[in-house]
């Protein structure tokens, strides 16, 4: 019974933890402008992240080392440093976006100006990283993030024309108004939002934090294989709600307040309250994960002592770097930049950096010195290579499309 509860908890946490501000905003924007004609990208992204999260978890469980430690050892300091620089900058953008997301959701709840919430969000995120145990942190934010199921509920309450939605999803076409350039730009953005690099570093470092062994792999695999797809389903629900309410009205999403409108229409103030709870939990959880991810990548590259299982005094450089990251994110937000804009750029830049983050994992997962008999089997390798091609294509096309379409305007 206890075992079953543990399994359920893991899966639920994965679902609730899948959606972050990037998924929320990108799916809402895409739904309001393209309907469900980009839903297939979410499917591709979810399969990809399942594949790579699985691999990185296996590397951590079998070798006892987290991904970034192994990247430097196997690929040398130059490649490791390039990887670190790219990942760190993108992590920083993502942390900024997530903290902005927390503040925006709190503004939606209270009407109090968003900038006033930023220091509150910052302090809250830091306090949890400073004092709260890893497992508790994961479970609470994951379970509360499940509130985002309200999007699926809202979709049913809206009584949409399922035929129209299905035809958009299964027979995708580029509308006259938007054009192929913008379509593919948002496909890349959606892909980057689904295959967030920080997730992989967090997952593998988390595996070391929780001291996974080979016998925990089965559990981890189930969490990933069941949790992430259900999280992807939530993403599509977000897009569908926007497609049903906002697209016909000609409203294209640019703010979080617009994302809430379909849910309010479907389920009134109660649904709205659940939504806000879900958004705060999801973005808070994601802010924790990305901040920890920045700490993990730096500490693992430079060989510092790291981990939430250690008291902060025993991992001083680790905690110091996270404090600096949080302060930098807040400083960027204090300049008044729109966090939704930061979010939209962060997902595209995540897509651009994907090859740098996934290629090393594929290489290490095939290395018998670290993996022993648990190296990738043929099927996983073929899938991994296919995805590498997709990732490279997305990465190379991102910047030209950004220039041509004016960042999706």
């Amino acid at each position, binding site marked *: 019974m206890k075992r079953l509860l543990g399994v359920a908890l893991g899966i639920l946490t994965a679902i609730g933890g899948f959606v972050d501000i990037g998924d929320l905003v990108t799916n809402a924007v895409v739904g309001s402008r393209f309907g469900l004609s980009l839903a297939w990208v979410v499917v591709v992204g979810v399969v990809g992240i399942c594949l790579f999260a699985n691999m990185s978890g296996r590397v951590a469980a079998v070798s006892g080392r987290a991904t970034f430690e192994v990247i430097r050892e196997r690929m040398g300091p130059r490649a490791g440093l390039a990887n670190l620089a790219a990942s760190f900058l993108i992590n920083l953008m993502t942390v900024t976006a997530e903290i902005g997301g927390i503040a925006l959701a709190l503004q939606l709840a209270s009407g109090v100006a968003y900038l006033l919430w930023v220091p509150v969000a910052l302090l809250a995120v830091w306090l949890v990283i400073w004092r709260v145990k890893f497992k508790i942190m994961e479970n609470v934010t994951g379970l509360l993030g499940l509130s985002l199921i309200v999007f699926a509920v809202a979709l049913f309450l809206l009584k949409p024309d399922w035929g129209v939605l299905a035809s958009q999803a299964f027979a995708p076409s580029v509308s006259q108004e938007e054009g192929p350039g913008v379509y593919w730009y948002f496909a890349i953005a959606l892909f980057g939002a689904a295959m967030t690099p920080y997730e992989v570093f967090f997952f593998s470092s988390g595996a070391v934090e929780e001291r996974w062994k080979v016998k925990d792999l089965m559990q981890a695999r189930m969490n990933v294989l069941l949790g992430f797809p259900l999280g992807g389903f939530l993403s599509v629900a977000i897009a569908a709600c926007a497609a049903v309410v906002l697209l016909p009205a000609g409203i294209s999403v640019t*703010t979080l*307040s617009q994302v*809430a*409108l379909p849910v309010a229409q479907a389920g009134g*103030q109660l649904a*709205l309250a659940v939504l806000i709870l879900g958004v705060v939990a999801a973005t808070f959880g994601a802010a924790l994960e990305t901040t920890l991810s920045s700490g993990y990548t730096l500490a693992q590259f430079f060989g510092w002592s790291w981990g939430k299982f250690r008291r902060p005094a025993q991992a001083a450089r680790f905690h110091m770097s996270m404090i600096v990251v949080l302060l930098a994110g807040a400083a960027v937000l204090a300049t008044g930049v729109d966090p939704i804009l930061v979010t939209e750029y962060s997902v595209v830049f995540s897509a651009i950096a994907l090859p740098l983050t996934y290629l090393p994992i594929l290489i290490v997962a095939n290395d018998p010195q670290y993996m022993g008999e648990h190296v990738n089997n043929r099927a996983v390798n073929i899938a991994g290579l296919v995805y590498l091609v997709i990732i490279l294509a997305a990465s190379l096309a991102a910047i030209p499309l950004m220039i041509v379409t004016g960042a999706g305007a």
Partner: protein
Amino acid sequence: MSQYGRRLATILLALAVLAGALTACSQRPSPEALKGPAKDVFSAVQAATLAVDLRIKNSTTAAAGSTAADDMLGEVESATDEVEGFTAPTEEEKSLRDDMLTSFATISRAMLHARDALTAPSGGPEQGQPGSGAHGLPEVLGELRNATDQLKALMTKAGIQ
């Protein structure tokens, strides 16, 4: 000057002239250029209308509604700034740009009323407070709908769709 130096100087001069020409020409209010701001404003006013509508049905909170109205007001403001920056040498272009700006101004006014009305508690504000009486929620809804129709007519006339 050497031959190489002369060629370099010519290229640099050409680039400078080109840069000067490009920066001197700001946007002309053609239907193409106006499409972006017009659509943004249309989207914003539709969103504000939806927010007011939901508030009337008590489906959304004052906080969420007023946040939406505030955000949408910001959108209209930045679209207005963009169109104001267009240069309009011909009479026709000038009248199109001014019509567009008038429409945006009407929408901005309606949205200000909407924000005030939405900030009020659901029992309705007291008489004389902003958001009451002639600026109550149903009236604001009508105002927004009129402004939207005005904008739509203007967009059709200008050939934006």
